[in-house]
C-alpha cells in the first residue's frame, strides 16, 4: 500500500515559497489502477516524485509498503558512453536483480541486436526508448508509475509494451499520470484530478474528465 496523508510540498524560488502540493490524501492499494489527470504545471511530476519516494515532503506523511517503479520508459537515466548491457547491469545492481536472468529478456525484447553491446550514444531515439522500457520491465515492482502517455517506438513495439505491462502484469498496481483521458479511461479504475496542487477523487472517469475540463 502507498499512503499519502495530508501531504504538502513547497519549492523555494526567488519569488518566495511556492506551494506545489496542497493537503494531498491518496491511498493506493495493491493491484489498484490509478489514473491521475492534470494539466502541465498542476504538480504532476512533483506528485510522481513524492509517490515514488524520490522527493521528501514538507509536511504530512508518506507510508509505502509496496515497491514503486521509477517513471516508466524514463530515458534520462542512461550513461551515453556505456553500452546497453552496461546500463542494464547498473540498473540490476541498484535494484538487486539477477543480471544473468535479465540479459536474455532485455536482449530479446529490445531487438537491439549487436547494438545491445554498443555505446548508447550510437542509438537512435527509438532504440533508446526500447531499451528504457525493457529495463523497467526487467525489474519487478508491485506498482508501476507511468508519466504521460507512452508513445514508444512503432505500433508493433507499442503492442509488445502493452502486453508486457497490461497483460502479463495485470495483477500489479499502476499509476498513470497524464493530461489526456484516453489511456486512463482504458486502463484505470480509480480516477483523480490534480488541479492547482489539489487532488480530487472520482469514481467515474467521465465525472473526472468533466471536472478536469471545467477547471481548464
Amino acid at each position, binding site marked *: 500500500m502507498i499512503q499519502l496523508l495530508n501531504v504538502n510540498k513547497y519549492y523555494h524560488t526567488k519569488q518566495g515559497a511556492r506551494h506545489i502540493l496542497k493537503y494531498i490524501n491518496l491511498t493506493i492499494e495493491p493491484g489498484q489502477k490509478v489514473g491521475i489527470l492534470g494539466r502541465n504545471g498542476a504538480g504532476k511530476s512533483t506528485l510522481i516524485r513524492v509517490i515514488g*519516494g524520490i522527493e521528501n515532503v514538507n509536511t504530512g506523511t508518506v*507510508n509505502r509498503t509496496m515497491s*514503486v517503479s521509477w517513471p516508466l520508459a524514463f530515458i534520462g*537515466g542512461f550513461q551515453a*558512453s556505456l553500452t546497453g548491457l552496461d546500463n542494464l547491469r547498473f540498473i540490476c545492481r*541498484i535494484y538487486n536483480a539477477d543480471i544473468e536472468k535479465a540479459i536474455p529478456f532485455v536482449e530479446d525484447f529490445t531487438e537491439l541486436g549487436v547494438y545491445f553491446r554498443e555505446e548508447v550514444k550510437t542509438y537512435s531515439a527509438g532504440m533508446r526508448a526500447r531499451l528504457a522500457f525493457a529495463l523497467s520491465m526487467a525489474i519487478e515492482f508491485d506498482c508501476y508509475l507511468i508519466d504521460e502517455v507512452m508513445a514508444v517506438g512503432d505500433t508493433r513495439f507499442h503492442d509488445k509494451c502493452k502486453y508486457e505491462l497490461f497483460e502479463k502484469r495485470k495483477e500489479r498496481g499502476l499509476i498513470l499520470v497524464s493530461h489526456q483521458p484516453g489511456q486512463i479511461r482504458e486502463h484505470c479504475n480509480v480516477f483523480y484530478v490534480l488541479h492547482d496542487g489539489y487532488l480530487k477523487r472520482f469514481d467515474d472517469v467521465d465525472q473526472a474528465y468533466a471536472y478536469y475540463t471545467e477547471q481548464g
Partner: protein
Amino acid sequence: MKVTTTPLHKSFSIQLRVIDALLRREVLTRYGRDNIGFLWLFVEPMIFIVGMTALFAYRGLFISGIPVIPFLVTGYSSVLMWRNAANRCSKAIVPNISLLYHRNVTVLDLFLARIVLEIAGASMALIVISAFLIAMGYMALPVDILTMVQGWFLLAFFATGLGLIVGALTEMSDGFERIWQIITLVTFPISGAFFMVEWLPKSAQEMALWVPMIHGVELMREGYYGAVVKAHYNIPYLVVVNCIMLLAGLVLVYKAKDNVGSE
C-alpha cells in the same frame, strides 16, 4: 516528515550495493575500456614527480638532507587525493541528476562513489609509483609502512569530509565553484606537500600546524624516512578536524538534497 519503514541494516546494505554499482559505472565512464584513462592515473603524478626531480637534480637529489624523490612522492600523492576527491564532487549532481529517479540512489551515494574512486585511484598511484621507483633504485624502502598507512588513512578520511562539503556547497551555490578553485590554489603550497614543518621558523611552525592536511603528510614522511626527519603532528587534532568536517559534510549534503528536487 516522511516516515521511512526500511530498517537500518537493510538501508545500509542497499547503500553499499548502490555505491558499488555507481563505482563500477564511474570506473567504466572515467577510465573507459581502452585503459588509456586508467594509465593517466599514474602518468599525471609521474610527470609531476619527474619534472620536480629535474629541478632538484643539480643539488644532488637531496632537499634539506633527505632524498627528494620520496619527498615529492609522499607530498604530491597526498595533495592529489584530497584535491581530486573534492574536485570530482564539485558539481557532481547535475550530470547524474536523472539517477536520482531511482529511489535507492541518493545524493550522498553519488558523492561517496566518486570519493571512494578518487581515494582508490590516489592510493593505487602512490603504491604503483613507489613500487616502480623502489624497483628502479630511485627510492629506498620505507622505514615504517604502518605509520605511512596511518597518515594516508587519516588523509583519506579528510578527503571524504572535504569532498562532501565541496560537493554540497557547489550544488547549493554556483559561486562556490569559483571560490573552491581559489581555495585549491591557496592551499596547494601550504598543505605540506613541499616542506616539512621542522624547516620552518618557529612562529610559522605553529601556524602551519593549524592546517589539518600537514599532520597527515608529516606522519607519512615520518613513516617513510624514520628518525632521519623530525616530524610534527598531532593525531587527535587531525581526527577531530576530520570528524567535524565529515559531520558538516553530511549535514550540508542533507540540506543540498532539497535544492536538487526542484531541478
